[in-house]
């Protein structure tokens, strides 16, 4: 389990954590699906048919299943970007903006150094994707550390700035001459493309996601830094008194988190799209917040929840195609899942 600091009030969790966690997650999903079915009925759609279509597409064939995995990648990364600072008590709702800044700086590297060999260029693209998102989040971290602006507000506001910044380059300096009707950047050279597995859309970002999750777990659980971070999250005043440099940790945690979200953006341009284009992220940053929150910051919980949400979102596409519903409707299902957990904290295994 993701926490050894649980209060004594949850002995059962230590005895049968996996079973209990599984039962919790499944019951959340079942209740949400029932309520969402009622919503579908109200708008005159057939929920059984909708769920059957979704299931058939996502599990019925390899192509659909690989699509669910491919879409899970950015979710794992943006969720980790929420989980890490949450250990210090920081609330990062800026995954969306950090993703865009990662994509933007990665694109800059890919377009500027397109003559470099793959062995150098690809790591550079990945690194700059990380730095782009990281610096963007570090701004919010610094503002919080200075006590000027709470990171909730600053990250939310910056979410609206980053996509506009990327759009400026898509429609301006980086606009490809052959993209008259649908503005986008020039295509990346092969040396700047993150490889995919076989002919699916699943890409190496999946491994980056695992690395990020492992790094997060290792940092928080196994290092002294992680211990001090958890001390800050647990009791900031006590942490300050024992001399833990809270401000430095806040900025560093936000930088790392933003960097991880930036990797999600980097992977979208480098692996999935092969260029910078508009609307890279259909709300991956916000969904990441949800996933991390539902999983209580637990790394394996994040993997599971990311898979689940990816399935729901892929299902959203199916609903759009077969039922003529707007994609945004899938947000109702997401919200229901979250609201059920909020109303029944026991389902999440935490009482706060």
């Amino acid at each position, binding site marked *: 389990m993701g926490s050894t600091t649980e209060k004594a009030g949850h002995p059962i969790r230590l005895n049968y954590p996996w079973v209990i966690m599984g039962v919790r997650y499944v019951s959340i999903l079942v209740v949400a699906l029932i309520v969402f079915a009622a919503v579908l009925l109200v708008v005159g759609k057939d929920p059984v048919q909708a769920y059957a279509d979704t299931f058939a597409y996502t599990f019925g064939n390899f192509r659909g299943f690989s699509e669910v995995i491919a879409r899970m990648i950015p979710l794992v990364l943006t969720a980790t970007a929420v989980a890490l600072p949450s250990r210090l008590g920081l609330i990062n*709702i800026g995954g969306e903006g950090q993703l865009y800044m990662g994509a933007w700086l990665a694109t800059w590297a890919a377009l500027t150094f397109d003559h470099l060999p793959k062995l150098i260029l690809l790591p550079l693209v990945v690194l700059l994707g990380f730095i782009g998102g990281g610096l963007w989040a570090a701004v919010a971290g610094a503002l919080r550390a200075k*006590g000027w602006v709470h990171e909730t*507000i600053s990250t*939310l506001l910056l979410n*609206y700035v980053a996509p506009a910044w990327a759009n*400026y380059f898509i429609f301006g300096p980086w606009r490809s001459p052959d993209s008259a009707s649908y503005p986008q950047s020039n295509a990346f050279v092969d040396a700047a493309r993150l490889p995919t597995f076989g002919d699916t859309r699943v890409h190496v970002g999946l491994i980056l996601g695992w690395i990020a999750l492992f790094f997060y777990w290792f940092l928080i659980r196994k290092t002294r830094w992680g211990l001090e971070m958890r001390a800050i999250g647990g009791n900031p005043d006590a942490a300050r008194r024992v001399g833990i440099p809270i401000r430095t940790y806040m900025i560093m945690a936000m930088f790392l988190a933003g960097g991880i979200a930036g990797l999600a953006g980097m992977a979208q341009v480098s692996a999935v799209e092969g260029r910078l284009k508009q609307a890279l992220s259909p709300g991956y940053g*916000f969904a990441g917040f949800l996933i991390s929150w539902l999983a209580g910051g637990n790394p394996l919980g994040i993997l599971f929840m990311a898979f689940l949400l990816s399935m729901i979102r892929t299902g959203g596409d199916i609903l759009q195609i077969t039922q003529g519903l707007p994609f945004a409707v899938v947000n*109702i299902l997401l919200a229901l899942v979250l609201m059920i957990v909020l*109303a029944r904290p026991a389902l999440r295994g935490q009482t706060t």
Partner: protein
Amino acid sequence: MSLSFVLGLLSGSVTSGTTLLYATLGEVIVQRAGIVNLGIEGVMLVGAATGFAITAETGNPVLGIVGAALAGGIFNLVFGFLVITRMANQLASGLAMMFFGFGLSALIGRPYVGSHINGLENVEIPALEGLPVVGAAIFDQDPLVYLVFPLAVGIWWVLFRTRWGLSLRAVGESPTTAFAAGRNPSLFRYQAVFLGGLLGGIAGAHLSLALALAWSEFMTGGRGFIAIALVIFSKWHPIRAIAGALLFGGALILQLQMQASGVKISAFLLEMIPFLVTLLVLIAWGGARRHAAPASLGRVYQGTE
């Protein structure tokens, strides 16, 4: 900078600021009761969609506004249930409501995408409209604009000059003390959340019925979050919120004005202005403002045993 540019900016600030002011006033009431609602974006969207749908069906924008207000109020009661009755985390609940609003408004508005409506018509104030130069710019607005300024004063009066307002603020400062003084904190918080929803719904309706005259998904475009920043900016004070809303409304409208007057700056860079201005203003005011916040803001009231 021509005169028409300045006048357009002035009049636009008032119109655009009105949307923000309704939402901000609602959030001031909610936060004064000790609750942070990050879900205003969702409330506004639901209000905008409901108001538009009702107006498109009935042809009566007044019914649309009333419907939008009620929809916002009821929507916020769900939020109230989560954070008051279920004592859930307020930030996460607010975001859940934001997602809920995204989806719900898309569902409500779906049949009306591209519909044409007769929105709120402008009302000229005869005596003032005749003022040289600025008269026509400022005193030719939709009725919601004229209503919002007295409303802000009214909310100030209720919050700071009535028994009910005193109780509400006491709940926001210290629910336990308020309870000891014979007030029911949960009841006051529900009332605040409902009122906040009414005003958020009207803010959304103002957007779809007076400004855009159309419904589109995500049409609030972050105005809900600007409203939250405005609450901090105005030190949780309804009257100061007027100045803030006009300023931020100006930032929102500046980009449109600059585009319209053919300034050679990318529309996307201009799009960033309101959010950067909001952030810079918050930085400039710095931590000095925090003392003005209700003491129990964001804390869960566990009840008094």
